[in-house]
């Protein structure tokens, strides 16, 4: 399964009637088992790009090809849970075919067991984000999209959730698209990094990481990070 994105441009008309260019021409391909990471400054158009890829925004130039039968799991920037449904119902509504065993396993990994019956209003942001992750994984997605899933969490929790994401991504072949500001997240989770320019966004650089995710030791990560810094200096 492959995701092919070829955007020739996207403009946005503001309330004042001015036209803004949000996305410049850009192109990339993602295959099953790969984690692509989009890194770029705030407001560069990442969320717009995600909306286009997810089919929420059809008003753009170019094309996005993904298999029509591909199931999508999405973690939005905000958890976007249904406040009037319990944690378990939230997950089951998005993933009606999830087995009890699978659900138990997910809740166990994400440490949500105690919160199955709670309503989202009773959860902390960190917990709500974990529910959003559980929901995205429960659908057993072919395309997993994570829009800054670890933003505004403390380092320890973010680190644990990152490991959990890595475990879950490794457990099945899935095309993953991660949006983040954090180079650390990017090099720990990503197979290919796409650095984006400020708005209108285009891909400034595409950096593959050759070492498989599981074999990246701390020393390895430091080396990759240094390499990235050098590459980025070069490109400036």
């Amino acid at each position: 399964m492959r995701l092919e994105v070829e955007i020739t441009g996207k403009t946005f008309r503001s309330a004042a009637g001015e036209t803004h260019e949000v996305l410049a021409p850009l192109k990339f391909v993602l295959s099953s088992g790969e984690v692509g990471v989009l890194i770029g400054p705030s407001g560069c158009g990442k969320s717009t790009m995600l909306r286009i890829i997810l089919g929420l925004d059809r008003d753009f130039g170019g094309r996005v090809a993904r298999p029509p039968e591909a199931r999508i799991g999405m973690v939005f920037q905000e958890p976007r849970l249904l406040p009037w449904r319990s944690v378990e119902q939230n997950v089951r509504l998005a993933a009606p075919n999830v087995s009890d065993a699978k659900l138990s396993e997910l809740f166990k990994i994400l440490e949500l067991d105690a919160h199955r019956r709670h309503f989202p209003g009773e959860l902390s942001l960190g917990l709500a984000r974990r529910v959003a992750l559980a929901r995205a994984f429960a659908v057993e997605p072919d395309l997993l999209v994570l829009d800054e899933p670890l933003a505004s969490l403390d380092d320890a929790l973010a680190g644990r959730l990152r490991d959990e994401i890595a475990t879950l991504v490794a457990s099945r072949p899935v095309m993953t698209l991660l949006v983040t500001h954090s180079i650390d997240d990017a090099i720990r989770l990503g197979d290919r990094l796409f650095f984006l320019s400020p708005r209108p966004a285009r891909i400034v650089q595409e950096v593959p990481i050759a070492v498989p995710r599981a074999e990246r030791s701390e020393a390895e990560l430091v080396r990759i990070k240094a390499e990235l810094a050098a590459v980025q200096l070069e490109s400036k």
Partner: protein
Amino acid sequence: MLRLLSFALLLAIWWIAALFVGGAKLPSPPAVLNVIVADASSGALFLHLGATLARVALSFVLAMSLGSAIGYLMGRVKLADRLGDPWLILLLNLPALVVIVLAYIWAGLTEAAAITAIAINKLPTAIVTLREGTRALDRSLDEMATVFAMPRWRAFRHVVLPQLAPYIAASARSGLSLVWKIVLVAELLGRPNGVGFEIGVAFQLFDTPRLLAYSLTFAAVVLVIETALVQPFEARATRWRPRAA
């Protein structure tokens, strides 16, 4: 307990006032109770109450379902809003009496005319409330439902409907009180039974005990329905909300 005390106080004031004003204008509580008991044992009270309740139920259900559907449509589809808005303003400002009289003239003194007229009076407020509710729907949750490919009906039931529930409850609340008031007018003008009809008869005979007997039983029924049906529904619809301090 406090409520009971307050009710007893009202009763006491009524009784004292009745002693001063005299039985013809303001009968004492036992006099009114006598009429209630007499009409209850003859069955007339239940016949009239039943007729009124049936009209309320029918016109309320008709107005709520139609009004909710139209309101939802107008909230979702801009064209429908544009087309419907002038009609809505007209309906909102049309006096209830005009609608009832016209319905009786056009459709005859029939049950259908009465129920339609009552429903038309309630319809525009239901539309307005539901339109506001639909406009306030959270688009980000709609997007979530789309991305996770929720089937239309499931998305409507679990994503849209819970957001509309407080608006539906509010509309039911205000709508019911409106229907309670209008149904009596419709009955007074053109029905041979119901609480409104009985009150009309009592008015013509200046029979204050009968008038009070029927209006008070009617008020009691309204109170029971409000507390037993409407309030629990409201509480259930909003149970996920954190309690107000």
